[in-house]
């Protein structure tokens, strides 16, 4: 959670105070179906201010979700609350700000018809265009629409812009991917089987309207929720049954990716993983000229890197915000402040800030240019920049050296090598940045115990405060007894008492080590294609240079603290094991000829 006293450059403050509310927050709820261009019926929930007068017209906030647009509550809760009470955000905030609030089940999910082979298909994106046409034809619509969301709904909001409909005035994708291969499914080419399997399990059960799944993964929802909300006219639930029949033909990402390794391996119907990315729709998003508010967290999977890639690659005017909360900002996640129990700003305050952004785009002149706000942990301060990396950024190398030390000067010995037999019990736990995609809290705890299984190096105490902002580059010279393998590198802060705190980490599968000079998009780190044609198995016993980056972060290393790098060969609770059999011995070279190092993106202080 960000420090509530961090006022300077605070994006939530800069977006403005909460204005006087236009309506009293009470709303009407209607559930209906809209038929899109190919006859598929999309279920939508429409919330309007209860005190809306007949001649008044409103802009609309649209969310398109695969997680049940509205829930049928169990009795007795249904006797008291309407289905919108389970929505996030609650419609009372949005309607009180003078917007209609519409949420849809994307095709193949919830109470919508259709079948889906994979998420974020072109058909799903185009449905957004048809929904816009329906909205602007309604008597209460002023013809202007904005879209927002977190995670899946963040990406649907972003891809909504690719429709280039003139009615769309702004989008607010929160915590979404840019490149699904590297940001979530195969970070560093390593398969995140835990999330992919759990997410597919959740999706399948939601699509079959099976609330049983909640009992295991979200008990509070299980107590409260009976299933997806049918549309109002579906009194005998026949439409819901029909939807469920169609969904039984859905396919799920885990089934279609668990046996894959490469970016160019195909999904059903010949689609590639890049085809469902945001970067593949870059040109259309840019042509829309729709302003964007993109927000995320340092601790969110690979989505933190996605926020940076959007800032670098899209020419839309935008605000980007990177904080220290969990996926979706429902919980604090700053590992340096585990005592903080509530997130700042509160969800309600945050939604009002987002509505202020929408007001600028709907009722005023929008936003100009690009600005990125980022929160530096330990310093507990917000900063803002119009370029990335920020002004004053320079790389400083820390070399792996004798006695498991990290030094700013390179090694001078001729033979230095450290051996590490991969420990396949190594784990970053089930509350890491990847499980966080399911909304779980992020807790890395004191890493000292886990580091005992790893190959670790530590620096001397820093002689002054140093800000690290950006992506740490890892450059290792390694050999292995096996032709395949993976490295997991953790960057940690060690305080004067020896407490080890997780900062960030990165993972990389060694067969992808070929560095390419033709990236798919602008990128500031060593680029790997992850294509089959570029696969380079290791030759056992031969030293190879391995370069990759850790996930982006911003942290202040205090004077007297040390930096630690801990290297693993697996993360058993999250990622696939490589190789699938055997136990490699890795030799890390740290000598004059093969000097392994990390490069820290240090921000120079003003007087340097």
């Amino acid at each position, binding site marked *: 959670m960000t420090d509530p006293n961090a006022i300077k450059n605070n994006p939530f403050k800069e977006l403005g105070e909460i204005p006087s509310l236009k309506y009293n927050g009470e709303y009407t*709820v209607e559930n209906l179906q809209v038929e899109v261009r190919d006859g598929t019926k999309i279920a939508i929930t429409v919330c309007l201010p209860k005190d809306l007068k007949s001649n008044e017209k409103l802009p609309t906030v649209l969310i398109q979700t695969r997680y049940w647009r509205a829930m*049928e*509550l*169990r*009795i*007795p*809760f*249904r*006797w*008291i*609350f*309407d*289905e919108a*009470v*389970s929505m*996030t*955000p*609650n419609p009372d905030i949005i309607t009180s700000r003078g917007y209609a609030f519409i949420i849809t089940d994307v095709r193949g999910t919830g109470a919508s018809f259709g079948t889906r082979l994979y998420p974020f298909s072109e058909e799903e994106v185009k449905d957004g265009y048809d929904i816009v046409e329906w909205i602007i034809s309604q008597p209460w619509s002023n013809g202007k629409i904005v879209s927002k969301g977190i995670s899946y709904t963040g990406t649907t909001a972003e891809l909504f812009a690719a429709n280039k409909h003139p009615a769309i005035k702004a989008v607010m994708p929160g915590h979404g991917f840019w490149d699904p291969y590297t940001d979530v499914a195969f970070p560093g080419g390593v398969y995140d089987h835990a999330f992919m399997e759990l997410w597919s399990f959740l999706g399948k059960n939601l699509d079959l309207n*099976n*609330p*049983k799944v909640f*009992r295991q993964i979200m*008990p*509070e929802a*299980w*107590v*409260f929720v*009976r299933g997806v*909300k049918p549309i109002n006219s579906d*009194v005998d*639930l026949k439409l819901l049954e029909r939807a469920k029949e169609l969904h039984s033909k859905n396919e799920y990402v885990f089934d279609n990716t668990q046996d894959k390794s490469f970016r160019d391996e195909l999904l059903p119907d010949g689609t590639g993983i890049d085809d469902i990315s945001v970067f593949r729709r870059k040109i259309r998003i840019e042509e829309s000229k729709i302003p964007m508010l993109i927000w995320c967290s340092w601790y969110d999977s690979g989505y933190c890197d996605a926020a940076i890639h959007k800032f670098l690659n899209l020419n839309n005017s935008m605000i980007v915000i990177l904080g220290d909360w969990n996926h979706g900002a429902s919980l604090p996640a700053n590992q340096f402040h585990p005592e903080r129990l509530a997130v700042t700003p509160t*969800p*309600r305050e945050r939604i009002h800030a987002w509505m202020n952004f929408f007001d600028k785009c709907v009722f005023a002149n929008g936003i100009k240019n690009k600005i990125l706000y980022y929160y530096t942990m330990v310093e507990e301060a917000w900063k803002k920049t119009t370029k990335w990396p920020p002004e004053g950024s320079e790389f400083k190398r820390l070399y792996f050296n004798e006695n498991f030390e990290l030094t700013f000067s390179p090694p001078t010995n001729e033979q230095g090598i450290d051996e590490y037999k991969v420990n396949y019990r190594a784990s970053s736990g089930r509350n890491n940045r990847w499980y966080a995609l399911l909304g779980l809290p992020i807790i890395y705890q004191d890493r000292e115990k886990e580091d005992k299984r790893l190959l670790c190096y530590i620096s001397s105490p820093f002689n002054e405060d140093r800000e690290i902002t950006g992506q740490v580059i890892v450059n290792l010279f390694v050999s292995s007894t096996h032709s395949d393998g993976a490295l997991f590198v953790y960057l940690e802060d060690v305080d004067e008492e020896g407490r080890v705190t997780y900062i960030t980490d990165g993972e990389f599968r060694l067969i992808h080590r070929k560095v390419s000079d033709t990236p798919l998009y602008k990128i500031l780190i060593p680029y790997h294609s992850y294509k089959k044609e570029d696969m380079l198995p290791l030759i056992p016993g031969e030293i190879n240079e391995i370069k990759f980056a850790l996930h982006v972060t911003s942290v202040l290393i205090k004077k007297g603290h040390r930096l630690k790098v801990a290297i693993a060969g697996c993360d058993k609770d999250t990622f696939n094991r490589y190789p699938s059999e055997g136990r490699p011995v890795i030799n890390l070279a740290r000598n004059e000829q093969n000097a392994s190092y990390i490069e820290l993106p240090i921000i120079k202080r003003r007087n340097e």
Partner: protein
Amino acid sequence: MMEEILPTLKEKIQEKIHIKEDESNLSLTITISGTLFGKIAYLGEIETMLVMFGGLNRDFPKHVSVNEEAQTIEIRVENQADYLLLQTAFKKIWDNAIFMFSEILKGNFDVIKDIPEIDD
């Protein structure tokens, strides 16, 4: 933001849900006042509610009649012993529902561990 509804849950239950007991008839009638947000009860939902929140762990014959227009549900049983079970369940059902929900929001999932499988 489900936490936000907790403080008003008990008050709303008392406002909207009224129970009338008729021992001579071995029946109990629930009336929901005000606006109803969807169907009053689907087939099997009353039984599910009684198991989840009323703590009923014994199945016994009951006849459930739902009147959507009048917003009433009548539950009739066949004997005095079953009537007492039903009455007892309804005495604690709302407090149990609130307690269970609030405990789960705090992260205490033990409160549901003894509930049998109730979903289709």
